[in-house]
């Protein structure tokens, strides 16, 4: 039963992916619209299932790698929805669905049973810290999706070209959003660590790598703003940034020992 939290949204996002795929083949706006409806419905169902998991476990579903991956895929659709609502982008649905599917598929590699919380995680800070940092990762993952699309479709395009310019601006917006949420998550984790252990910074590998990732994006943003690294150059920076995010999220847990070995 507990695997439903990932399996049902997986099915709905897969259906959305297929519908988006058909919309590309037949060049139909209505198919695209149906794809977005399915994506939105999948997100609503995923939200409901996460709340159900929360009720069953008696704690927020954010205590291990499986659950944080669920939040990450949820965050990707949420950020896409926000960007979709505030702009008129319409060609990224296929890639967003693919991104969420990939995240949910990787969740299936981990234990999906609901385990009780270890002492350090029994705090409301768990909810705030994990959700904010996961939304940050989601925004940066979405920026990387846009960077990929940019490099495939507009690699040699002039930024005066309307579509290339719009995608470049949107990619930057996703990066700034991810940058904000990432530091928000780091700050919440830092305040939590001070409440739990009396130290807001311990140079724990996970902490350090999230700072490395955040600093990398700070450098990328400064390169764009002051050195004019826009378009394809910025897209490459964003793709490299995703490698930092992935290492901070996965690599640290498996390769380095620290306070976040459960995450």
């Amino acid at each position, binding site marked *: 039963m507990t695997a439903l939290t990932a399996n049902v949204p997986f099915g709905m996002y897969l259906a959305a992916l297929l519908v988006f795929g058909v919309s590309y083949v037949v060049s139909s706006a209505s198919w695209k619209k149906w794809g977005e409806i399915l994506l939105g419905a999948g997100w609503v169902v995923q939200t409901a299932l996460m709340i159900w998991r929360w009720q069953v476990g008696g704690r927020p579903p954010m205590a291990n790698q499986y659950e944080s991956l669920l939040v990450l895929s949820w965050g990707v659709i949420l950020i896409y929805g926000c960007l979709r609502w*505030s*702009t*008129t*982008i*319409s*060609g*990224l649905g296929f890639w967003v669905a693919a991104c969420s599917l990939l995240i949910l598929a990787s969740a299936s590699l981990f234990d999906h049973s609901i385990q*009780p919380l*270890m*002492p*350090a995680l*029994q*705090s409301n*800070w768990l909810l705030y810290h994990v959700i904010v940092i996961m939304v940050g990762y989601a925004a940066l993952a979405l920026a990387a999706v846009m960077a990929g699309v940019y490099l495939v479709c507009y690699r040699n395009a002039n930024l005066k070209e*309307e*579509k290339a*310019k*719009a*995608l470049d*601006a*949107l990619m*930057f*917006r996703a990066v*700034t*959003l991810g*940058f*904000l949420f990432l*530091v*928000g998550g780091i*700050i919440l984790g*830092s*305040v939590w660590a*001070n*409440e*739990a*252990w*009396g*130290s*807001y*910074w311990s*140079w724990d*590998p996970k902490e*350090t*790598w999230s*700072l*490395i990732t955040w*600093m*990398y994006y*700070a*450098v990328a943003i*400064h*390169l764009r703003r*002051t*050195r004019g690294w826009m378009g394809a150059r910025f897209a490459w920076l964003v793709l490299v940034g995703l490698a930092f995010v992935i290492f901070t999220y996965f690599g*640290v847990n498996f390769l*380095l020992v620290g306070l976040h070995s459960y995450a």
Partner: protein
Amino acid sequence: MMTIRNRVYEVWKGLASLSLFFWLSGLLLVAMVVGTLAPQWNLYRQWWFAGLLGGLAVNTVACVIHRWKAIRWPSLISHVGILSILAGASVTLIWGERGSLALMEGEAGECCGRDAQQAMTVHLPFKVRLKKFWLEHYGEAKHAVRLAHRTEGWTKTLESVVVGKQYAVEGTPYKVTVKQFVPDFMIDLASKSIQSRSSTPRNPALLVALEASPTQEVWLFAKYPGMHQESLPVEVAYEYRPAQVKQFKSQVEVVGEDGKVRHEQTIWVNQPMKYAGYTFYQSGYDPEKPGLSVVEVAKDPGVPVVYTGFGVLLIGLSLNVFRKRDDSRKEKIS
């Protein structure tokens, strides 16, 4: 010929350059990556690492002052936030006190130190006494008994057995009756009776009666699986599965110089005690030493400065993200 004023200006321009920011950031990134891969080098405590952070702070101040007319409010606020965090971290480093108290039940302490690498030692103006320490668990510990036949090759496991019950081993003529559980097995030499040294499962043992022909009683030890097996027709092993620790808690008292109790509180992880500017955090225990609790003690005047920086940084970045921009709105990508 270059005047002193020109030279000072050149230095100032260098300090306020973005190239310096990129260089310092690059060096810090490399240092932090190496620091996580080789923690034994303790890079974050080296003078040059503090120098890089200090250089970044100076560069940030210079950049902000040098470009104050051009810089936007949100960016200015964000950079002030970063400077406040660095300033707070310096206050922590210089004036912060931090130590660790390892106390047995009934014991009191007033001085706590860290390992040799950190000179900071806290001398409390009062004593802290550990009145009581205890563990809370999710559910109960479980016992499993495994039987393996030496010649026939089969293995059967009886999961979650309970004292006082009899279990038929499926597909075999054997029956197992669980008679007694002792968490910390010992033999009292005076009375020659079996006793438990403590309630902590340091040497968990299970007394079972194996009904075959004839019925034999045997003590099984989770930590010493081979003991008392010689006379049995099958190998019998006992597995002790401790319940997961839910929380560990300490009841602590603050005792004044006159010996009177000034304050009493129960602390656990995420629930520290604050007294006289010091904060006491439940940080650890030793499963091998029942009644021992490790309490971290901290007094950090840098925290308010760092927290102010956190708030200011978040405000600046939020204004930056959510300010009105017209670059990506009303554009179509398809």
